[in-house]
């Protein structure tokens, strides 16, 4: 109440306001600095001593380009990019299709056993993934899917998280619209495909982006199923630089990391709205 009587200028410089900015800027530096530092390590001449340039700003474009050239040529880094992309695409397409079909039913219709089945699916969110990891590995091995894209992608398609997220979107669709389409002669699948799916495009994009983040960032599953270097995902290719056997200097490791971070960061910058919306939605209605 008291602030109302102050002039606009005085109001901007209250103690609370200054403190608010200091704390906000401090955490801004905390979150940005590690990534900014990684970027600077890549774009600084490796010979420059830390005392002269503490890697707080980029100083050499050519050093960065030569670092990138080293990573791209000296290992199968580009190939791992392809493997990770194929993994992500197969998993996302499968997840979007399979989860949206199930979410359509769970969100809009009644059928015997519905609640029970949904509960079973959701219980998967509570079970540590390591519990099913070893047996799933054995199943994938017996299908002869080790060191393959399908071995990487298929086990993750039936995602409980994806089902839950899309059901939240499907639930809010007007049921009358589906009934009207069905009366007009559309088949059950036709209504899903031509009416429900286009209407939940926001949910599909959200799950697609989050699915990409999960697949691209997955480390433990590729580690288990893809042991051959030619089937390394980006996560395995980058972490190879971290292993004890690796003697790569820090700027090469950071270059590999930077290249690996590019796709998710670009996705985030472009599609931020969907990511934030998706996380907020699953959080709020859970």
């Amino acid at each position, binding site marked *: 109440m008291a602030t109302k009587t102050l002039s606009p200028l005085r109001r901007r410089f209250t103690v609370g306001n200054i403190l*608010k900015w200091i*704390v*906000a800027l401090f*955490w*801004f530096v*905390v*979150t*940005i*600095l*590690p*990534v900014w*530092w*990684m970027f600077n390590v890549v774009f600084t001449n490796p010979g420059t001593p*830390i005392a002269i340039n503490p*890697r707080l700003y980029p100083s050499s474009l050519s050093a960065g380009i030569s670092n990138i050239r080293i990573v791209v040529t000296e290992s199968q880094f580009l190939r791992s990019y392809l493997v990770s992309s194929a993994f992500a695409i197969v998993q996302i397409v499968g997840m979007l*299709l*399979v989860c949206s*079909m*199930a979410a359509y*039913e*769970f969100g809009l219709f009644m059928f*015997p056993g519905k609640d029970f089945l949904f509960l*079973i*699916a959701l219980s*998967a969110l*509570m*079970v*540590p993934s*390591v*519990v*099913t990891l*070893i*047996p*799933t590995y*054995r*199943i994938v091995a017996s299908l002869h899917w080790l060191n393959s894209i399908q071995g990487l992608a*298929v*086990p993750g398609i*039936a995602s*409980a998280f994806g089902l839950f997220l899309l059901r939240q979107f499907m639930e809010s669709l007007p049921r009358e619209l589906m009934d009207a389409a069905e009366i007009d002669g559309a088949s*059950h699948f036709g209504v899903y495909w031509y009416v429900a799916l286009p209407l939940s495009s926001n949910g599909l994009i959200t799950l697609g982006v989050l699915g990409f983040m999960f697949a*691209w*960032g997955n*480390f*433990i599953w590729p580690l288990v199923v893809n042991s051959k270097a030619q089937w390394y995902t980006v*996560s395995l290719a*980058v972490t190879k630089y971290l*292993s004890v056997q690796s003697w790569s200097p*820090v700027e090469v490791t950071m270059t590999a*990391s930077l290249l*690996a971070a590019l796709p998710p*960061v670009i*996705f*985030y910058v472009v599609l*931020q709205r969907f990511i934030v919306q998706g*996380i907020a*939605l699953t*959080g*709020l209605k*859970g």
Partner: protein
Amino acid sequence: MSEKKKPFWRYGKHYLMIAPFFILFIVFYLAPLVYGFYISFQKWDGVHPPVFVGLSNFIKVVNSPYFVTAFTNLFKYVIITMFFGITIAFGLALLVNRFRGAASNVFRSAYFMPTVIPLFLTAAIWRWILTPDYGLLNRIIMFFGGPSINWLTDPKFMIPAAVIVDVWRSTGFNMIILLAGLNAIPAEYYEAARVDGANTWQQIIYITIPELEPVLFLVIVNGFISALQIFDIPWLLTQSSYTGYGGPMQGMLFPVMDVMGRAFGSLKFGEASAYAWILLVFVLLVTLIQFYLRRRYSRSL
């Protein structure tokens, strides 16, 4: 009219639509879950036929020194990281909520950014930041006159190091959920409180926290479930492999790492499965306790 009176087969179209999900779900989730439970009672190296050994896998796991270390580390880690993680995320959500327009968007985007970076990269970046003497963090500490800390080799500092990395990456995620919850609180509540003369702290304690309770609870439950499964960061920070993991004196050894080592390092799939099931029961217990405490606590509210 009433859907309940339809014969069972009339629902066929619904089951057909959920079938692809549940077929994959059974093959790659439910079957492995049951199969893992079965393996945990067998002695099995993955090559020779499994032999039934009763509870001996569970007994072996619980009595092994690594098990005690891993769970002790886990306790310390989870308690510290949950405390700081939730407190900071809540504080940041309140903070970002007090900004308007561009500043609010910039801060929110920046705070969330670490969550977007894959875990394996977070570990790669922080491995160098935590390096003794030359690492960014130690240079900052030394700039202010502190000592250089061996974050990744001194067992005293290895759990704090794992906490720092986890708090850095997970607070943004929790902040986004809490922010959405904050925005759902009607503004009239605050106006009414201000009319009654409540200050900012009183508003937080009497309006924000009770109204946000369901969202906070979800963030906490979810935070515990993922913190108890910590793997990528300590595994990569300590340059672990199937044959050697956890760092010096197992200072960064956690249960999932131990499961992986026993399975794919020493090929003791039975022991590893038993270990994983112990962790599962532990996670379920922790979750149930939280639901129980919430019910008890909210009754007295």
